[in-house]
């Protein structure tokens, strides 16, 4: 079965990104597919590569990057939500005249259409938020 996953709250403040991570790992372990995870609202903050949590804490962004690489998961960050919150990839940073970009490996910025498309193309959509 194909699962689509939405994460709509930021890392560390909310448990959503953690619960979603465990859910996706468990789904894949059971032989299901998770083709895409969509990050919306403050969930886009998971995608910053500038996060530096204390060493004895989980690294939420690294965990997602590694999981996506291992299982070929499309990690999509909503462009409108990301731009509001200061998350830019290289293209967007150049286009907006900003001096830095901060999107981590494995994540890509795209439109809300990717969320709808995920809803159409998967068998179940599961949302994690606040």
């Amino acid at each position: 079965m194909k699962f689509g996953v939405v994460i709509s709250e930021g890392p560390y403040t909310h448990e959503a990104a953690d619960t979603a991570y465990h859910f996706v790992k468990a789904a894949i372990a059971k032989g299901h597919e998770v083709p895409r995870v969509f990050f919306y609202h403050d969930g886009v903050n998971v995608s910053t590569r500038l996060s530096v949590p204390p060493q004895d804490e989980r690294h939420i962004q690294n965990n997602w990057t590694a999981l996506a690489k291992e299982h070929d998961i499309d990690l999509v960050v909503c462009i409108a939500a990301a731009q509001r919150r200061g998350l830019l990839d290289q293209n967007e940073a150049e286009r907006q005249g900003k001096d830095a970009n901060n999107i981590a490996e494995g994540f890509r910025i795209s439109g809300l259409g990717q969320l709808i498309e995920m809803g159409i193309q998967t068998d179940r959509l599961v949302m994690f938020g606040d």
Partner: protein
Amino acid sequence: MPDVKKFLYVNRKAPYGTIYALESLEVVLIGAAFEQDVSLAFLDDGVFQLTKGQNTEGIGVKNFSPTFRALGDYEVTKLFVERESLEERGLTEADLQEITYEDEDDDWAEKPSIRVVSRAEMAEIMADQDVVLSF
């Protein structure tokens, strides 16, 4: 898998205090281009999103309530509002904006988009969907 899925956007939060209502509306507008069977549900504090007379000048935030009136142009014509949620909050349908659409199957007659439904009817609507997005 059906070609057209039933999408329900569930709105349970009030506007302005948090961004959920606005960003929900942004998904609805983008999603309209996908020509799915779209409904919006307003219950709990979500009913406050549709009230008349919102004036955000004093808080310096964009008033997005007029956008609801444009939904008909995007062929988003089913806005289900829960009666019990209105009553619990001291509201009636008269406190809500008038939102209409032009029915192309009925000689473009103007019809109300808001349909006030009971809690039990809302539960039925929720149970009739393929995809439920919560905001």
